């Protein structure tokens, strides 16, 4: 750090310049940064300490149990992962397709603006509302089962679809126009240009957006409650129509048990597991993304 940014005033041959506001603002900005990081670190430490003794191999590989020391997380873990995988399969093609249409095909007009505006609005709709939609549409009208894997995946998938679309649009928009021009100038059709030039270049950005959206999906609880996913299931899901629970649901359920051992130990173990899985998925995805970035 240069001396001038820390000294309150600077002695200079050409006159005095006050740095008081500089310094004050810098400290303020630092404090703002620390509030978030420190509180998160405290929370994580607190939870991690609580989880000690509870988070073991048995916890990860057993079904839930009325006694805290025998309680397990396996069905919820598998349930969450199954839902996640299905969501990725549903939202990726839909999201990228919609983004390509809006960015490359749709002409600028009132209809496109209207659609665009509504997608942005949908990204902000509370998740409980999507739960209600899922209950009415997938469970009620399409009748694909209360709390089934597929109903859960479609409901939460719809919830994150706008986020996937918007981030894919941003990635596509960031592809320099000179690249499209080069392709069209060579006599490429629109499809050839999108397939060979636009999508490869936008892919890292699209994947980042999808990953972040999946990160949001894995923590969603309210829509699952709404479509009547059971808070506790004792077996891992075996098919698309199996009843499924998810990690946050199971944690929520444990937290409502009267025993202190559940409220602190088991819940903490569940939270640590959820966070570790979330971070692992994110890191795997980032590695994949970086590889993509290098090869293009």
């Amino acid at each position: 750090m240069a001396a001038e940014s820390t000294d309150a005033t600077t002695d200079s041959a050409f006159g005095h310049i006050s740095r008081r506001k500089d310094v004050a603002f810098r400290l303020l900005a630092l404090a703002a940064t620390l509030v978030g990081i420190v509180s998160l670190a405290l929370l994580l430490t607190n939870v991690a300490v609580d989880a000690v003794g509870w988070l073991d191999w048995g916890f990860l590989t057993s079904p839930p149990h009325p006694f805290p020391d025998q309680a397990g997380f396996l069905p919820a873990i598998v349930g969450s992962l199954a839902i996640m995988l299905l969501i990725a399969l549903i939202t990726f093609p839909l999201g990228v397709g919609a983004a390509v249409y809006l960015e490359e095909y749709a002409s600028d007009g009132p209809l496109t603006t209207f659609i665009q505006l509504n997608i942005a609005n949908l990204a902000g709709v509370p998740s409980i509302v999507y739960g209600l939609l899922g209950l009415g549409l997938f469970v009620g009208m399409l009748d694909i089962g209360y709390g089934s894997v597929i109903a859960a995946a479609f409901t939460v998938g719809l919830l994150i679809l706008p986020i996937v679309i918007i981030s894919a649009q941003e990635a596509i928009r960031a592809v320099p126009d000179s690249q499209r021009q080069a392709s069209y100038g060579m006599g490429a059709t629109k499809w050839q240009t999108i397939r060979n030039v636009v999508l490869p270049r936008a892919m890292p950005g699209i994947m980042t957006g999808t990953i972040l959206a999946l990160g949001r999906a894995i923590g969603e609880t309210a829509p699952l409650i709404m479509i009547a996913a059971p808070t506790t299931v004792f077996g891992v899901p075996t098919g698309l129509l199996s009843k499924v629970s998810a990690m946050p649901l199971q944690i929520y359920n444990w937290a409502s048990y009267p025993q202190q051992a559940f409220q602190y130990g088991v819940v903490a173990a569940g939270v640590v597991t959820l966070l570790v899985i979330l971070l692992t998925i994110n890191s795997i995805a980032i590695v994949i993304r970086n590889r993509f970035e290098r090869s293009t």
Partner: protein
Amino acid sequence: MTPPQMSHSETESAADQPDTTLDSDIVDDGDGPDQRTMMDRTLLEARNLDVYYGDEQALTDVDIEIPEKQVTAVIGPSGCGKSTFLRSINRMNDLVDTARIEGDLLFDGKNVYDDDVDPVALRRKIGMVFQSPNPFPKSIRDNVAYGLKVQGDDENVDEKVETALKRAALWDEVEHQLDESGLELSGGQQQRLCIARAIAPDPEVILMDEPASALDPVATSKIEDLIEELAEDYTVVIVTHNMQQAARISDKTAVFLTGGELVEFDNTNKIFENPDHQRVEDYITGKFG
């Protein structure tokens, strides 16, 4: 404003015939217009071409006949419509929503704005090189082969890539790194790569939009040498800001001045030594622009 837009054939029939014959360097001694017309077959022709972007008129009533296998330079101050003219030849202006074209633009006698012309097919006959090098983030080989790939030509690709790179005077420098990214080349090499990409599918015309404006003098002079060589096989139309460059490399020069008006079109020598228009002379001698 009509007389200045002289096409070549008009020049010939004009009174000062000996003068123009001297300017043309490919000639038979005045053996008559017939043979000359054969040598200078018109490949691209604009008739009363107007281009608008929304309400703004970018080109006004342009008439021009561009001869085959020669270098035609298009010069003029910024905003005079020279890039617009270039982009209306291969219908790249179609990609601009607000662009509107009136008049005719003939390529080999066929109006490219006719309903039965597919702009994608047209662009496969007319290659384009842009102002700043824009290679794809792909290997050198894939960059050059891009046109072949999109045109469904997958025979002897490696051979064609090699030929194109040689013609673009880049082969010796990249021979051993064909699988490395095109983005790792220097700016001048990237531009030659883009030229190789444009000529790989063997188009008839190459359009160049200020291809050397982002390059240093050494790279520029390489590109200039290259352009002169390319004119043996291709019809080259080059937009440039640099008048010395136009004088050095072109056979014909078109001068656009403000308002998208083609003020004078003639042999390059004539334009630079004895233009018919005071405004053209003022522009060329740097009095404005």
